[in-house]
């Protein structure tokens, strides 16, 4: 009996917590305990499993356990089955580990909020769904988790739906998130239908094994199925064209943004694409599209982040951009690099969100960066951990983990057979923008003149997660060194038992070294530019914004390149117009019409009943004539 047989406990513990909290509620203490301990236990289980896995990998590099058969229809019988392999192990680790720390943080962050136990119930539901998603052996079970995270996200974004000030806003943001991701979900289920049709089952290992035999590379079946799967991934991961929901989703509490919209749910798309990598390699066109979507999103999001005032919106666009990097990596075939970046990104993005949450709490729920300032002295711990996270985000060379995870992506974008110079250039330019906006955020928030008094000192439950994640943001990169540092690559070795390595095109040797130096340089350049424009001479930016061109550029970027307006004009307004036109319900009018016709006829004939004798006599005669005619001639 190995630890593998206890894997089913990993999602079940948060599920139990959710059920108890949802049904019974509980006092703050009970809810806090019930909300955090089960996830912590799951985290410990995952670590134990990981240790066992790394020392004694199971046969075939994957462990599967069928819990029970879900249902049977004809030949189709999906099972509730769990599958453990390197990919799911990495994701499990991130979800439970980061999740636990975020929940710990929330016990203090949400301490004064109403609906405390409801919050932890929803968070546990989310953790459960996400765990099911990554542990699922059958795509239908994966879809169950997929839907579950969508639901929890909706519930948590709109958590403060009763808030008098932005009541409409929170609920609107939640609805928007749900609807936009719904489009993706529909694409995904259509893709699942195609897969079912072609393979007769939705069992993932089975599909991945049978795919090369069943599909011709580049065949239209492969293209359609993978495009639909990509559609689903794009929706959940907030990539082009379904990216509009993520900035508005910041209406939820900061721990929610940290867990769902930084570390886990938005990476569900990455997981899906990595999991079905075989299918994508059979449709190179679609894989190219993945890379293009990733590249486009990362540029758009990075430049939009430059113009945001709300600290959480900067982080939201930043998440969009970083996931674009992951998609780019997936698109050029660098599967393990994408997963590595996912892990590192989870650490530093969660850290940044938690730090931002602490700042917001200290500033009395003020989100506007430009109204903060000088917090460096007042909140030193928050400042230093935030700085570590920002450094990782900007991929400051060598010291931060971000460097070790982002650099390979840039390298593969240039050097892989599926990569190209243009993809690399997009990622390179966006890296500069990333560095700029990140340190813009740091300098505006923590440096400069203090504008508001700080009344709040973060407690131990906020400080511990910040410290842990901060340390990880610095050192976690050391498990995957680039080639020029010597071949210390335990991570990709681990991943490559499952995912194939990227195929390299012929590139001149030593190019990798030059690219690394270039990346390092622009990261530092970004810091310098941010220092220059936001600490030394902020008036330059101000004057730029005053010019007409500058103002227009600024507005365009701040609105996320106008996608919201585009969708509103193209889709929302016609649908709303249609709904208004149909408000009186056409089809109902037909039935109403029948009734109204009868009423009208009745009224018409009622006029014959006017009490006048001669009229009645006339009627009698008329009737007699008609009847006689009928009898005589018919």
């Amino acid at each position, binding site marked *: 009996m190995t630890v593998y047989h206890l894997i089913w406990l990993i999602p079940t513990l948060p599920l139990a917590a959710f059920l108890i909290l949802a049904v019974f509620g509980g006092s703050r203490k009970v809810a806090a305990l019930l909300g955090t301990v089960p996830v912590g236990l799951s985290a410990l289980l995952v670590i134990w499993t990981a240790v066992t896995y790394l020392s004694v990998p199971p046969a075939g590099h994957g462990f599967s356990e069928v819990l029970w058969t879900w249902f049977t229809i004809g030949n189709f019988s999906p099972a509730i089955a769990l599958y453990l392999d390197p990919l799911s192990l990495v994701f499990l680790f991130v979800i439970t580990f980061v999740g636990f720390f975020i929940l710990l943080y929330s016990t203090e962050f949400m301490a004064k909020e109403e609906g405390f136990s409801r919050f932890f119930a929803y968070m546990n539901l989310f953790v459960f769904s996400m765990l099911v998603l990554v542990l699922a052996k059958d795509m239908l079970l994966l879809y169950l988790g997929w839907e579950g995270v969508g639901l929890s996200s909706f519930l948590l974004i709109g958590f403060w739906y009763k808030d008098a000030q932005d009541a409409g806003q929170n609920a609107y943001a939640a609805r928007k998130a749900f609807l936009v991701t719904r489009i993706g979900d529909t694409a995904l289920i259509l893709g699942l239908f195609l897969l079912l049709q072609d393979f007769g089952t939705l069992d993932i290992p089975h599909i991945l094994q049978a795919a090369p035999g069943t599909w011709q590379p580049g065949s239209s079946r492969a293209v359609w199925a993978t495009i639909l799967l990509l559609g689903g991934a794009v929706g959940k991961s907030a990539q082009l064209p379904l990216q509009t929901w993520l900035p508005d989703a910041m209406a939820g509490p900061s721990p929610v943004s940290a867990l769902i919209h930084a570390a886990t749910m938005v990476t569900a798309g990455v997981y899906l694409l990595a999991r079905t990598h075989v299918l994508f390699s059979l449709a190179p066109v679609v894989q190219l599209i993945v890379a293009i979507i990733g590249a486009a999103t990362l540029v758009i999001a990075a430049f939009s982040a430059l113009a945001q005032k709300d600290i959480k919106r900067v982080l939201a666009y930043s998440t969009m951009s970083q996931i674009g990097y992951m998609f780019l990596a997936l698109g050029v075939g660098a599967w393990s690099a994408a997963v590595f970046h996912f892990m590192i990104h989870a650490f530093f993005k969660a850290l940044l969100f938690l730090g931002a949450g602490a700042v917001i709490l200290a500033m009395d729920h003020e989100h506007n960066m430009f109204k903060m300032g000088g917090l460096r002295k007042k909140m030193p711990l928050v400042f230093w951990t935030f700085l570590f996270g920002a450094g990782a985000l900007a991929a400051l060379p060598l010291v931060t983990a971000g460097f070790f995870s982002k650099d390979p992506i840039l390298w593969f974008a240039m050097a892989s057979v599926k990569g190209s110079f243009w993809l690399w250039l997009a990622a390179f330019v966006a890296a500069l923008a990333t560095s700029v906006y990140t340190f813009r955020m740091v300098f505006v928030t923590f440096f400069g003149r203090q504008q508001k008094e700080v009344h709040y000192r973060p407690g131990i439950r906020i400080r511990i997660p910040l410290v842990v994640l901060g340390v990880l943001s610095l050192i976690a990169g050391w498990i995957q060194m680039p080639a020029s540092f010597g071949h210390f690559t335990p991570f990709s070795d681990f991943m490559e038992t499952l995912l194939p390595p990227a195929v390299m095109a012929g590139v001149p040797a030593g190019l990798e070294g030059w690219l690394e130096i270039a990346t390092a340089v622009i990261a530092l350049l970004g810091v310098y530019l941010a220092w220059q424009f936001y600490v030394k001479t902020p008036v330059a930016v101000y004057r730029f914004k005053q010019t007409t061109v500058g103002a227009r550029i600024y507005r365009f970027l701040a609105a996320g390149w106008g996608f919201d307006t585009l969708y509103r004009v193209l889709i929302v307004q016609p649908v709303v117009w249609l709904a208004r036109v149909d408000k009186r319900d056409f089809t109902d009018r037909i039935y109403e019409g029948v009734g109204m016709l009868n009423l009208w006829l009745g009224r018409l004939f009622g006029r014959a*009943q*006017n*009490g006048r004798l*001669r009229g009645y*006599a006339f009627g009698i*005669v008329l009737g007699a004539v008609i009847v006689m005619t009928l009898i005589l001639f018919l």
Partner: protein
Amino acid sequence: MSAVPLHMGLLLAGILFLLGLVGVLTRRNVLFMLMSIEIMVNAAGLAFVVGASRWMQADGQVMFLFILAMAAAEVSVGLALIVQMHRQHKSVDINVLERLRD
């Protein structure tokens, strides 16, 4: 002494009946309506008698007697009603009596 063709007799009865019918439908004066009704009754009786003469039996004539008696009864009651109507509404226009309307 030739005989009268039957259809001529029936036709005459028909024409008289229809004339009475037109009178009922057209006139507004109650008395004229009553007179028209009498014409109609008389015409119906004529039809019976024509039939009796064809079979040379008395049944049709007995029917006519019954009809006649009924006409008499009807006229008396009708006239009583007309008198009452005149007393109440001071008019013999039949359109005055329209309380039984929708």
